[in-house]
């Protein structure tokens, strides 16, 4: 038997460890995904509350009408929910604009670590000497030792601090609102199919007739 390469015991353990790590990562992603799906199902239930009365009272009579009515409700809810995050985003935009005006910098660099950017609050490492060529590819070979910037507060960077914080909060909030909107939209499509469907699943004509006769005999 020809063997191309021989694996030592330690190599085998290493490969098994890597495989387990990969499996664990994918399982973790699967868990996160299933949690997101569950959350979206829970978020979509909002449309049940919004449309329940009209459906139960049989005011909405067909799937097309239901979709139109539910979309109006969904849009109104989206408008109501997205007001605050969009205002926060607007505030962040205004902050950026005012920073540009006061510092007379067009454009105003929010990533500058020396004076005006929010990165003045972080360590900036020098990675220039940390790469080594490995089969023609530059790879990170060691942890950098030189820090270009140490955290410090800069007055000129106040605008960027406010901008970054408000932008992140507003954007994440807005994306969650969009996610809710999508969840409700999926729920509307599902409900439009399910509410007005007439199923013959588990229906047997003979059994039905038998039950009918039993009822008439009982009376």
């Amino acid at each position, binding site marked *: 038997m020809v063997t191309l390469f021989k694996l030592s015991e330690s190599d085998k353990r290493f490969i098994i460890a890597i495989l387990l790590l990969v499996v664990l990562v*994918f399982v973790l*992603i*699967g868990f*996160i*995904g299933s949690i997101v799906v569950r959350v979206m199902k829970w978020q979509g239930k909002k449309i049940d509350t919004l449309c329940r009365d009209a459906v139960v009272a049989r005011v909405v009579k067909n799937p097309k009408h239901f979709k139109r009515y539910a979309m109006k409700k969904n849009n*109104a809810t989206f*408008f109501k929910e997205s007001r605050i995050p969009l205002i926060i985003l607007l505030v962040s935009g205004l902050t950026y604009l005012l920073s540009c005006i006061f510092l007379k910098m067009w454009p105003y660099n929010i990533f500058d670590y020396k004076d005006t950017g929010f990165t003045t609050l972080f360590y900036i490492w020098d990675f220039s000497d940390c790469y080594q060529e490995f089969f023609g590819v530059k790879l990170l070979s060691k942890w950098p030792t030189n820090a270009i910037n140490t955290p410090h507060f800069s007055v000129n960077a106040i605008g960027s601090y406010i901008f970054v914080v408000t932008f992140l909060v507003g954007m994440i909030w*807005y994306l969650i609102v969009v996610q809710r909107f999508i969840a409700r939209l999926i729920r509307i499509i599902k409900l439009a199919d399910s509410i007005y469907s007439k199923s013959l699943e588990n229906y047997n004509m003979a059994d039905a007739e038998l039950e009918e006769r039993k009822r008439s005999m009982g009376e």
Partner: protein
Amino acid sequence: MGSILKKFGQGILYLFVLPLLLVAVAIFGVYGIFLFIILMIKSIILFFKGKSLQSDLPEDIEAKRILYPEKVEPKAEVEEREPIYIVDRDTDRIDEDRMAARYAIEEEKARRAIEEDRRKEIETSYDEEEEDDFDEEPLLLDNEEKIEPNIEDDSEEVEEEDFEEEEDVESEKLTVDELMDDEEEEEDIPTLEEESKIKVDDSDDDFEEDHNLIYKDWGDK
């Protein structure tokens, strides 16, 4: 073990589908901004119409009318009044004419009560004004003379006179019975002697003087 493998499979699926999901979220995000702008314009228009974007749709109103009729159409709070039933003894039926007359009397009583209250209010306010005027009299030193403007005095007099007239009118209105008695007293027929006296009274000195003056004027001419 099976569930872990299932999650592992789902993980691979989500990892491959994730970019597409992110793109979808980004597209909906941009769509949401446009939707927000359109709905904001719509809400502004609705605001000036006195409505709101969150207000009930026609379907909701219809559904509420069907499911919760009491909430949609609450009973109107009508001021209830105890009815006065007058029954005709002969026919044992409600006499509508007499009932209407009774209601009219009740209304008249209420109207008179209101007028009486108003009159009292006017009287009390007048008394207060008088008291105020008395209080507002300026304190003078021994050497100073009290100067009273004639215009104000006249106006006060006029007001007083008007008020007296009003009082008279109201007294006429309110004491109809008394006036009726007075008229009966005045209806006494005068005798011939009294009539002659009245004629004599007509030939007053003043009257003659006036005539003489007229004659004098004519004589000059």
